């Protein structure tokens, strides 16, 4: 019996736990839009300008990391059957720390405020550690033998590496030691490739077959992707930064790239074999994500082969095309489901028949993610243009991103409002009955 001590299959955390993270993300997306809209377009010509540093961190921390940490607190209990300890407090503190942390970091990088950078150097690691440690405890207690379990653990490990490297760079910005610019790519690699890819794939193995009723991913791929990918990261990092061996660096890149291409192709192939045939914006978002992943890989190799491809383009296609699309697709599935689930569970707890509760399509009508998908696709095209013609596309891209943030925020808040009103009705009926 003792091995079942931590087991609880009903451990969906309170709605607020992931929600407060989800609701924060559109604010940072909006800020990224404002930055694109208002910064001097000449700043987009060089990746080291304050505008680029501000924009990339609004995107990867304010949007990607914030949503992913929120989702992590939801998926670990659901997919691994193991609750995060002190889930509510962890979420509240993670949120309280990360919101000002991102804001200070971006201000620090954009306007050069040293005090802001110092504050961010304390707040961001604290925010990540609070959530990551709780998630690791839950993962270690899980009885699930699904590969997702060690993907999430390795993803968190990669996040820690990113954090340490980010902290190192930040202290360089603060003048503690010479700014180690060479570490930027290492920091970017462990964040974008390590944390992001391991989290997205670890979740994809389970949710892609679930959402579209596709065949399962091949067991061999699920088992070997993470160890090989992690090994590839180590080889690349080692070859580039410590051993200065270009051939080793190339071998690491080739391994990572081959795995990513394999993941994208297998996902697309499984989706062609889906049993569920009705239109679904999440499917569109995931296909866009996988297409972008293939494109980012192609661009990366063409650039290495000497073609005149802007340095940032593969990274933009990866971070916005692949990661951004996957995140949006997931958000539009997770939130409406959680609204329904929490209302139904509450009705059950109150002994009420759950009649008239909003289903997923009523919490967020399917036309909304469809509209967002079209706008997002347009925005991706504009964003790619930033590498060539910033003077023409920066402002329209900024305005469109602002609109996307506004729509996303409105859609999420709409679902929250529906939850609130039905919840109040249930409490009235439960209290009166």
């Amino acid at each position: 019996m003792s091995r079942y001590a931590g087991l609880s299959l009903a451990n969906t955390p309170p709605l607020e736990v992931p929600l407060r993270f989800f609701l924060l993300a559109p604010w940072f997306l909006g800020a990224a839009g404002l930055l694109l809209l208002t910064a001097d377009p000449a700043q987009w010509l060089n990746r080291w300008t304050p505008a680029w540093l501000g924009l990339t961190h609004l995107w990867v921390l304010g949007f990607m990391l914030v949503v992913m940490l929120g989702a992590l607190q939801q998926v670990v209990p659901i997919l691994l059957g193991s609750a995060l300890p002190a889930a509510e407090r962890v979420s509240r503190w993670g949120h309280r720390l990360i919101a000002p942390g991102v804001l200070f970091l971006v201000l620090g990088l954009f306007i050069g405020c040293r005090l802001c950078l110092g504050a961010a150097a304390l707040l961001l690691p604290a925010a990540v550690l609070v959530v990551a440690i709780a998630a690791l405890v839950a993962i270690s207690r899980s009885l699930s033998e699904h590969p997702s379990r060690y993907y999430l653990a390795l993803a968190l490990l990669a996040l820690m590496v990113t954090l340490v490297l980010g902290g190192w760079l930040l202290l360089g910005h603060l003048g503690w030691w010479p700014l180690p610019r060479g570490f930027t790519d290492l920091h970017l690699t462990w964040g974008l490739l390590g944390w992001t890819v391991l989290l997205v794939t670890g979740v994809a193995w389970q949710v892609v077959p679930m959402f579209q009723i596709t065949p399962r991913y091949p067991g061999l791929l699920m088992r070997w992707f993470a160890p090989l990918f992690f090994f590839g990261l180590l080889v690349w990092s080692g070859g580039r930064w410590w051993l200065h061996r270009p051939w080793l660096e190339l071998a690491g890149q080739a391994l990572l790239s081959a795995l990513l291409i394999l993941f994208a192709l297998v996902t697309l192939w499984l989706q062609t074999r889906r049993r569920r045939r009705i239109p679904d914006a999440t499917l569109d978002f995931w296909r866009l994500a996988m297409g972008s992943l293939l494109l980012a890989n192609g661009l990366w190799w063409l650039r290495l082969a000497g073609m005149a491809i802007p340095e940032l383009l593969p990274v933009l296609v990866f971070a916005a095309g692949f990661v951004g699309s996957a995140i949006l697709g997931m958000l539009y599935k997770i939130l409406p489901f959680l609204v329904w689930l929490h209302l139904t569970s509450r009705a059950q707890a109150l002994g009420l028949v759950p009649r008239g509760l909003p289903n997923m399509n009523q919490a967020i009508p399917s036309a909304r993610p469809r509209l967002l998908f079209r706008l997002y696709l347009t925005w991706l095209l504009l964003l790619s243009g930033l590498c060539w013609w910033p003077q023409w596309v920066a402002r329209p891209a900024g305005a469109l991103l602002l609109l996307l943030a506004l729509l996303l925020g409105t859609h999420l808040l709409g679902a929250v409002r529906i939850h609130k009103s039905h919840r109040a009705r249930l409490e009235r009926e439960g209290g009166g009955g």
Partner: protein
Amino acid sequence: MISDFLSNDHQHCDQLFAEAEQKVASGEWEAADEEFQRMREAIEHHFEMEEQVFFPRFEELTGMTMGPTQVMRQEHVQMRDLFDSMAGALAARDSDAYLGDSETLLIMMQQHNAKEEQILYPMLDAHLQGEAEALLERARDVGG
């Protein structure tokens, strides 16, 4: 293995789910009525096998009556409520309402199945190993 049998049955139910949804989406209402009925019966049969055969025996052997099996039962109730709502939408020929409910059922069912297949069923296999054949035979006869 109990887990193989029940996991395969999940996949059978998924297939019926997709067929019913497809018929509603394409407005073939009479076929939809039929497919929905088939899906509902298959899933109901699956629930009954668990609730009448496997869960009680597992609870008896482990003493865990308020543990994972209880949570699974509560989720069965939530899914049965969705079937009622879907049946109402089908009778009213309201495809939006049906598709909204079926989308919800899909996610509910899939996360439920994932928890069963990854955690609960391996526990069933471990505890009911010696009597698996007899239990499987009883399970097949449930409702029949």
